C-alpha cells in the first residue's frame, strides 16, 4: 500500500507542488522554533550555580577627582564595606564589576592557553563574592586575604573555561596570561548570571584588591527587617553623600532578565503559531478538496474491497507520504547546521529539534486529514460511482 501511495503522490507532484513547498518551509520554521526551545530549555535545566535570594544589587556611583590616590579610594571602599557589614540583617558584602549577575553589562577578554583560544566573560569580585552568592567551588578555593601577598595575582575560572583549556586535568596552580601572568587558585561551578535561559559561557574571575568599585552585592539574613534596605541606603549616603545610589533586589533583576530572554522566543512562537495555523488550514483544505474531488475514486476503492477504515487510513497515509518528501528535504538542509557548526551549538540540540519538528508536522498533518479521512470513509459507493 505504501508503494501505491508513493506512486499516487508522485504522479500528482505538480498538483501538490505548492503544498510541498508550504510543508518544506513549515518544517524549517518549526526546526528553528524547536532548536530555540530545546536550547533554552536545556539551559534552564542546568543548575544556576549560585543563590540569588536575599541578595541586593547596589550601585553607588561616586565621582572622584581624577588624581585621587588609589590607596585613599581603597580606604573609602573598605570603610564603606565595614559600615555595610555592620548594618543589622546584613550577612556579607562583596564588591563586583559592572557585569555582576542579571545586569546588561558584559565584559570579555581574549585568552590563549596552549594554543587554545577562548573569549571568556571577565568578572571582578572580592574575597566575599563566594559567600554572598554561595557559589560552589569545584576545585581549589575562592580568593582570600593571602592572595594579596601572592607573587602572582590569583584568578578563579569557571567549569566551562576549565574544560576548554585543561580538559580533565586539574587547572589549579596553572598560569594564565590575561595581559599579565596570573595563577589559577580555583574552579567555580558555572554561574548562570545572564538569566535562567542563557547558555553557559567560559568565565574568569579576577580579584578586587584595591581602588573603588561602584557596584556591590549584599547578602541579607533570613529574618532581615524590611527596614534593612533603607538602613543600607542611609549608610551609603552617610559614607558617600554625593553618590548616585540605586538598590535593587537580585530576585527582581532575575525576573526582568528572564523576561528579556523569553521575548524573542515568544515572538518566534507567535509568528510560527500563525504559520502553523495557516499550514493546518491549508492541509485541511487540500485534503478536504481532494476527498470531494475524488468521490468516484473512493467509491471505486470501496467497490473493489477497501473498508471504511482502510479509506480513512489511505487519506491520512497520502497526507503523511506527501509530508515525508518535503520533510526529507528539510532534514537534509537542517542537518547542515550541526555539520557546518553554524551556531556553535551541541549536535544533540539539532537532533532533538529535527525529531520534534518532524513529529509535530506529522501530528499536525494527521490531525488535519483525520476528519476529511473519516468523511471519505462515509462515502456511499453506489452514490459516489453514480455521481462521477
Amino acid at each position, binding site marked *: 500500500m505504501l508503494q*501505491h501511495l508513493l506512486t499516487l503522490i508522485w504522479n500528482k507532484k505538480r498538483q501538490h507542488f505548492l503544498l510541498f513547498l508550504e510543508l518544506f518551509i513549515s518544517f524549517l520554521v518549526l526546526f528553528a522554533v524547536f532548536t530555540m526551545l530545546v536550547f533554552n530549555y536545556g539551559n534552564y535545566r542546568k543548575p544556576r550555580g549560585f543563590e540569588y535570594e536575599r541578595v541586593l544589587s547596589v550601585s553607588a556611583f561616586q565621582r572622584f577627582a581624577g588624581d585621587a590616590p588609589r590607596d585613599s579610594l581603597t580606604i573609602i571602599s573598605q570603610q564603606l564595606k565595614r559600615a555595610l557589614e555592620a548594618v543589622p540583617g546584613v550577612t556579607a558584602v562583596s564588591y563586583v564589576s559592572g557585569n555582576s549577575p542579571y545586569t546588561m553589562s558584559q565584559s570579555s577578554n581574549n585568552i590563549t592557553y596552549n594554543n587554545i583560544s577562548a573569549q571568556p566573560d571577565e568578572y571582578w569580585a572580592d574575597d566575599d563574592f563566594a559567600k554572598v552568592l554561595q557559589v560552589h567551588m569545584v576545585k581549589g578555593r575562592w580568593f582570600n586575604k593571602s592572595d594579596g601577598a601572592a607573587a602572582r595575582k590569583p584568578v578563579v575560572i569557571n567549569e566551562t573555561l576549565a574544560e576548554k583549556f585543561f580538559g580533565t586535568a586539574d587547572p589549579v596552580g596553572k598560569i594564565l596570561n590575561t595581559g599579565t601572568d596570573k595563577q589559577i587558585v580555583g574552579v567555580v561551578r558555572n554561574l548562570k548570571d545572564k538569566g535562567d535561559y542563557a547558555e553557559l559561557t567560559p568565565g574568569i574571575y579576577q580579584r578586587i584588591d584595591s581602588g573603588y568599585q561602584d557596584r556591590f552585592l549584599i547578602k541579607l539574613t533570613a529574618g532581615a527587617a524590611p527596614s534593612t534596605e533603607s538602613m543600607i541606603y542611609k549608610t551609603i549616603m552617610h559614607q558617600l553623600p554625593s553618590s548616585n545610589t540605586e538598590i535593587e533586589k537580585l530576585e527582581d533583576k532575575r525576573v526582568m532578565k528572564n523576561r528579556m530572554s523569553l521575548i524573542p522566543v515568544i515572538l518566534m512562537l507567535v509568528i510560527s503559531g500563525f504559520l502553523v495555523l495557516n499550514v493546518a488550514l491549508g492541509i485541511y483544505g487540500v485534503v478536504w478538496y481532494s476527498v470531494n474531488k475524488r468521490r468516484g475514486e473512493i467509491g471505486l476503492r470501496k467497490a473493489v474491497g477497501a473498508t471504511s477504515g482502510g479509506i480513512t487510513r489511505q487519506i491520512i497515509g497520502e497526507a503523511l507520504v506527501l509530508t515525508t518528501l518535503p520533510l526529507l528535504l528539510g532534514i537534509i538542509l537542517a542537518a547542515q547546521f550541526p555539520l557546518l557548526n553554524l551556531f556553535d551549538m551541541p549536535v544533540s540540540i539539532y537532533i532533538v529539534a529535527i525529531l520534534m519538528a518532524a513529529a509535530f508536522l506529522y501530528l499536525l498533518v494527521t490531525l488535519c486529514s483525520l476528519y476529511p479521512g473519516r468523511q471519505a470513509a462515509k462515502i456511499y459507493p*453506489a452514490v459516489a*460511482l453514480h455521481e462521477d
Partner: protein
Amino acid sequence: MIQLHQIEKVYRTDTVETQALNGINLAVAKGEFLSIMGPSGCGKSTLLNIMGLLDEPSGGQISIAGSDTRNLGDKQMAHFRNQRIGFIFQSYHLINDLRVLDNVELPLLYRKSAAKERRELAAEALGKVGLSNRMKHFPTQLSGGQKQRVAIARAIVGRPSIILADEPTGNLDSAMGNEVMDILLRLNKEDGTTIVMVTHDEQMARKTHRLVRLFDGAQVQ
C-alpha cells in the same frame, strides 16, 4: 450463484418516497450470463448495486454463493466484494493519476499479496484483454474502448466468480462495444465467470444466456 428474494428498494426524502425496486425475485446460476434491460430509471443499476453489495435493499434477502449477506459488517462486505465480485462501469472509473498497470492492480491492494505477484496478475489480466502494450500508459492516453478493456482487466484480476457490468458498452461505438462484449463472452465461456450485465442495447442482450426486463422497479420478463 446469486439469489434475490423479494428485494425492495425505497428512496426517501422529506417529502417524496420513491419505490426503485418492488419485490424482485431473481436467481442467477453459476456460469450464467444474464442481461438486465429496461427504460432509464426502472431500477436496473440499483438492482446491480444491490447484487454487488454496493447498496443495501430496503427489504428482502440476498444470497451469494450460498452466503446470506444481510448480516455482513463493513469489513466482511468489503472482503466479500474483493474476493468474489468484479465490477465494470459505463464510465470506466479508472484513476487518471495511476498508470494502466496500477489501475488494474487496485483490487489486489486490498488483499494480502506481494507486489511482484500483483504485477504479474495485473499484467496477465491486461494480456487477456489485449492491452499488454499499454501497461505504462495513463488512462487519459487511451481510447474509450481501451479504457473499458482496462476496467475489465481490473474486474478480472482478482479472479472473481461474478462480474457485474453496468452498461459496459454504453459509452462506446458499436465496433468497440462488440470488442468489449466479445471479451465478456469469452470470460463467461472460457473461465465460467458468472456475469450480470445491465444494458440498453437489445443486440448485446441477445448475445447473453438470459434476459431480464424491468419496468418501474418490477420484473416484467
